[in-house]
Structures are given as structure tokens and as C-alpha cells.
């Protein structure tokens, strides 16, 4: 009888403590250039969640090269949500670490990509090297800044955009391989992430052209002024679809599934899309997309699916150990 009373009291105490817990903490593991986007979005979501539930949610951010970030999550970084540069970085979380189901990309609209972006060139004011298209990047003496495709999602988009261009203008995949090899011969330093490459180009004054996320290029113009840099839009680029996902095993262990799910869904809300547009990401919702259409250049965009058969085959052919990038960069 005494044991029963003790256990009952303990259970009641435990229930009371659980019910009283009003502070929630989420960890969003993201890629390099989303710092400003999520700094603004997190505040908006916290206010929304407080108004809706009364709970206080604090979102901690972790940023780095997308591939590197994915490896950290696989190695145990307890991310409630991942908002990475490409689906190919989230896939191993499902296939290798079994942290979320294989069909994770179908759980949110637009293949779980609430916003899109593309790759453009950032050059120094006056464009002294006369860089107008991908062709100009392989000229002798032109110094190109791009991060390392082995660690950076943005770098992989850069690489594949260049490949797609060269495939059209240099005789298919063989020509594209030579073209991309020549391009990487003009890369003097490989940063591990896109933000590092921006630092190399903008703050350290290295290179003639930065292959940049569109949002990162606009941000550089906004922060450092149009009198220092110019954006050059190439004739062709790639549609980058940075996806987001709840990390099931982590949220179930921490009991944060509801708030994590709501957090990602809020990216698709009117306010979430507005914030994405303000931070130079291309909104997916028609209203916000129309509102911000003027700030984005119109150009031909290929997709990863149509051009490379999806991330799994692109990863295997180009970025896996011993694949094309290793072959051309080792030379």
C-alpha cells in the first residue's frame, strides 16, 4: 500500500512537471547563407507560436557548409529541423542514419522547398575582367571564387550550373568535364561554405568573380554597396531548391515534434514567404512570388531532375569519392 502511494505521488509529480514545461527549444541546422533569413524568421515564428499556444519557443541556429552540416547531424548533432542547401544532403539522414523516413521530401509542399534560389556571378564594380557568362570564367588570368563542392551545397549548385552550360556549348558531357576542369583551375582557394567564399571575395579582396547564391549576391550588394560590386546574370543557371525537414528521431526523443512541424509549415505561411522574399529568396507562394518578382532577374533555369536525373545520381556521378570532381580537381 505504501509503495502504491509513493509511486502514485511520483507519477503525479512527474505529470505536473511535464505539464508545467512551457519553454521549448529547437535546433535548426542550416547551411551557410541563411543566417539573416532565419534570424528574422525565428523571431516571427516565436511570436506566432507564443500567440497560438502561450509557449515560449527559442530557436538555436547552426550554420555551415551544407554537406558538413549534414555530416554533423549524422554524427549526433541533435537537430530538430534541418534546412539545408539541397535534398542530396538530407537524403543520407534518411538512408544512412535513419533519422527520418526515405519519403521525407513528400511531407511538405513543393518537394519540401519553401523557397528557391539560383546561382549568379558577383563581380567587382566596373567588371574589370569583362565577365558576362560562364565562358568568361575559364579565360586565363580570371580568378574565380567558389566553395568546395565536397562540403558546400552552394558549391555543388555552382558546379552543376557550369556543367549544364558547358554541356550545351562544349559538346556534351566530355566537353563539360574539360570546361569545369578549366574553371576549377582558375579557383585559387576553396572555402568550406558559401559564406566563407563571400568573405574571401568581398572582405579579403581575392578573385575577379564570386559564384554566389542569388540571395548571397544581393545581400553583398545591400551590405557593401552597389559602388563596390555588380551582379552579372549568366545566360543559363540552375534552379536551386533548398529543402527543409523535421528530424523525426530527434523530435520524438525531445518531445518537440509539434512545434518543429509548425516551424517548418510556417515557412509556407504568408509571413514566412514575405520574410523569404525580403531576404532575397524566391518565394514559392504565388502572391509573394509576384510581389518580389521584380527584384529577381529572369534567366533560363535548368533543374536538377531534368539535367542530372535528381540528386542521388548527380551526387554519385560528380561528388562521391573518386567521382568527376575528385578526378578534375586532383589534376
Amino acid at each position, binding site marked *: 500500500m505504501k509503495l502504491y502511494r509513493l509511486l502514485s505521488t511520483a507519477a503525479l509529480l512527474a505529470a505536473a*512537471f511535464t505539464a508545467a514545461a512551457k519553454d521549448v527549444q529547437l535546433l535548426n541546422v542550416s547551411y551557410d547563407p541563411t543566417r539573416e533569413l532565419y534570424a528574422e524568421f525565428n523571431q516571427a515564428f516565436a511570436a506566432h507560436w507564443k500567440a497560438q499556444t502561450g509557449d515560449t519557443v527559442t530557436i538555436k541556429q547552426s550554420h555551415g557548409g551544407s554537406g558538413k552540416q549534414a555530416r554533423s547531424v549524422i554524427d549526433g548533432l541533435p537537430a530538430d529541423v534541418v534546412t539545408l542547401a539541397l535534398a542530396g544532403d538530407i537524403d543520407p539522414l534518411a538512408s544512412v542514419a535513419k533519422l527520418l523516413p526515405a519519403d521525407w521530401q513528400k511531407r511538405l509542399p513543393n518537394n519540401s522547398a519553401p523557397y528557391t534560389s539560383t546561382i549568379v556571378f558577383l563581380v567587382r564594380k566596373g567588371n574589370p575582367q569583362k565577365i558576362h557568362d560562364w565562358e568568361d570564367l575559364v579565360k586565363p588570368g580570371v580568378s574565380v571564387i567558389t566553395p568546395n563542392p565536397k562540403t558546400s551545397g552552394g558549391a555543388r549548385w555552382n558546379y552543376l550550373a557550369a556543367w549544364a552550360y558547358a554541356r550545351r556549348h562544349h559538346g556534351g558531357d566530355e566537353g563539360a568535364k574539360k570546361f569545369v576542369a578549366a574553371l576549377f583551375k582558375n579557383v585559387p582557394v576553396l572555402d568550406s561554405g558559401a559564406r566563407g567564399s563571400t568573405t574571401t571575395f568581398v572582405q*579579403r*579582396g581575392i578573385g575577379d568573380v564570386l559564384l554566389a547564391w542569388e540571395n548571397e549576391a544581393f545581400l553583398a550588394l545591400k551590405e557593401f554597396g552597389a559602388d563596390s560590386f555588380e551582379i552579372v546574370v549568366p545566360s543559363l543557371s540552375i534552379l536551386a531548391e533548398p529543402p527543409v525537414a523535421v528530424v523525426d528521431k530527434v523530435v520524438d526523443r525531445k518531445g518537440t515534434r509539434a512545434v518543429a512541424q509548425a516551424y517548418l509549415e510556417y515557412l509556407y505561411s504568408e509571413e514566412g514567404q514575405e520574410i523569404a522574399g525580403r531576404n532575397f529568396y524566391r518565394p514559392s507562394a504565388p502572391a509573394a512570388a509576384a510581389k518580389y518578382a521584380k527584384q529577381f532577374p529572369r534567366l533560363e533555369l535548368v533543374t536538377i531532375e531534368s539535367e542530372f536525373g535528381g540528386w542521388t545520381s548527380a551526387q554519385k556521378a560528380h561528388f562521391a569519392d573518386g567521382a568527376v570532381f575528385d578526378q578534375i580537381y586532383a589534376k
Partner: protein
Amino acid sequence: MRNSTSAFSIAATAASLLLLAPAASAATESKELEALHEQIRLLDQKIRVLERKQELAAEASAEAAKKQPAVAAGAGGFSLASSDKAYELKLRALAQADARFYLGDDGIAGNDQFLLRRVRAILTGTLGKNFEFALVPEFGGIDAASKASTFSVVDAWVAAKAHPALGVKFGKFISPVALEPGSDRLFVESSFVNTLLPNRDLGLELDGTLAGGLLEYRAGIYNGVRNNTSSVGGDLNDTKTFAGRVTVTPFAKTESFAKGLGVALGASSGSENGTIQNIVTNGQQTLASFGSLSGAGDHTRFSPAAFLYSGPYSFIAEYAQERHRLVRTAAPLNRFTATNDAWRVSSGYVLTGEDSTARSVTPKTNFDPAAGTWGAFEVVGRISGLHLDRRLFAPAANGGGGLSATTNATGATAYGLGLNWYLNRNVRFLLNYEYTDFDGGGAANTAVADAEQALFNRLQVSF
């Protein structure tokens, strides 16, 4: 004529050259300047690239260093931790070398002695952030009869804490009933209060803090252990003991003098059978031996306490009462419930001005004669008392316990003084004198033949 034409041609050519030379020279210089500018630009780029590569290498090294395990050694012990502190192993130790002398005890042989009171290696750690463990072997135990060294495990537990308000602990650890189980912050040995309360027990406990840390609770179910002893590997019977403690420190978050003020209540309830632990004096000599009496059922204890640690001052008041159902194991087999109680009031003052805390005194300066620094000094005092139930000593024929009131004491009052010298954070020397006046007793060749005067010295090393 030819000559004049030639001369004219030469002159014209020379004039042309003279006129054109500055323009050609300027063009050449401009090209050279441009080439120089380009060379400088390229050199500048090369230097910038080299610097950036160095910067990236340094960042990569710093990142890699963050992931390296951290090894630390210091006054707090030695530790090995993963970079995120989720996994940590700490090695600490405690060694107490005592010298005990009893003044005016002509009748007792062999009690003045040097001994290793405690020699413990303290291994604690964290597993996966929310799980902790401790393993504390004791190498300084002494077998009472043979005086031979013994080995035992003092603490061995695993704890999980997902929230400050709720944790769970399983294994062998200090019982929640007493304020200072098995030790005394100010004196070499514990007071009478601890002789009526358990030391360490084996069981399952819930614990946590509420109200932002102002209230701390512990509650659990345990094997049940004899007074002033540690549970062994298993239980002596099927019944279990419930025990708990609540400690409130209402001013802990203020900066007032009462910041270190607290009140606490510990209690236990269970059914405990078998041998009853002898009661000892503050000088660790037998005060009462229970002979043919044995535990036979309900055993409850409660112990309120109050404490204040304020600046150099410390003050502790503690009371304990136990009620234990007993039986005589020799005829007549009387059964009765004995109620024993004990109390103590302890106080200390750090002469050198350092703060006194529930754990220790950290000297402002370490003992270093060459530098003219001597550590910290604290004077301490304690008055404590014990009263044993008179039914223990009532004749067996009258339904009592039949214990001798001359070979045993029926109660005692002790007055202690001491000087504690903290040489540094790790080394301290304690000198205690304690006078104990007994009720009853008086039998020759017993510890209670006359008042006990114990002079205890301790050199303690801990890290």
C-alpha cells in the same frame, strides 16, 4: 649635290627622330607601367590567397581542436571530457589520516591510535549528458574485531536527469534522512544525531529542485539499513524502507546575510529486523551495546535541521528521533518500541575572514611560509546530546530490554571545541577536543566508566 641631299636627308631623319622620340618613350613607359601594375595586382592577389589559405587552415585547426577531448587537472581533481561535455570522467580522492587520543581513560587499552579513517578513490562521470554515475571504493575500512583493513564500495550509483525538477537515481548512495550522513562539516567525527540515522542505503530515488532551486527534494525506496551504517550488497529482509528529505533555502537568490539559511526535514519509515547497531560516542567508543535485543518491525525516523552559512560564520542545529520495534532474543522474549533521540548545535567562525560554506572553506591564500601566507583558520564548537529510551534498560522481568545501565550509558551530553586549518583547497588539518558526560554507565573497563575526553587530530587530503 648628292652630298647636300644626303646631308639634308640625315638632318631630316634626325629632326624626325628628335620629334618622335618623346612620344615613343611615353608609350613604352605607359606599357611598362601597366605591366608593373598588373604584376603588382597579381602579386597582391597571390599574397591575399596565401593569407586566406592560412586563415582557413587556422579555422580548420580551431574547429578540429573543438572536437578533441579535453583533459584537465587542477585542485578539483582530474578529468577527461568529450568536446561537448556530454561524456566526462572525473577522478578525485579523499584520504583522512587520524590520530586519536583519549585522556584519562586508564581502564581502556588499545584505543589510542593512528588510523586511516577514509581512503577513497572517487570516480564520477557523465554519460550522454543526462546520465551520471559514481563509483567510490573505500580502502580505509577497519574490521572492528581484528583491526584488519577492509575493502568496500561506499557509493555506486547511476542517475538520470531530464529536467531540474525530476531525476532518478539507482544504486548505493547517501541516505536522505540525515543532514550530513557519515560526515561532519566542522568536526572530525559526526555527533550523536548520526548514530540514530542511516548513512548510505541501496535503492531507487527521485530527486529534483523546484521554485528555481529554492526547494530541493529527495524521495525513494530503499533496502533499509541499520543506524549509522552503510547498506551492504543486498537486503536482510523483504520489507523496504521509504525515506525522503526536503530542504528549503528561501533566501538563496538574495545577497542578504540569510542567503545561506536553510531548513530541512528528513524522515524514513520501514520495517527493519535483525541486529541493531551499537551506539557510539562522538569519540567513536561504544556507548550502548544492544546485546540480546534485535529489530522486530516498524522503524521510523525523523530529523529536522536548520543551518546558516553567512560570511565567516556557520551555524547548524539538528535533531533526530527514532522509534524502533524491538524484541529480546533471549527469554523473556519481550517486545516493545524504543524511542531514542539526539540533538546537536554546531557553530564555526573563520578567523581569517573567508566564507564558510556547507562544503568547506577556501583559503584566500595557500599555506606558503616562504611567502608569509598560512591558509585559513576556523574555530568550531559543538554541543550535542543523546537520550536512550528507559525501556531499553528496564528489567526484562518487567517487560523491558534488560540492558545494563552501568556497562552502557543511558544518555550523554558532549561539549566539543576545535581548530581547523585549511592549508589550501586540498589539504586541511583538524584538531578537536570533546568532553562527553554520560548518564548511567560507570562500569569499570568500559568506555562509559567515566567522562570521555577525546583529542582527535586529522590530516585530510582531497581533490
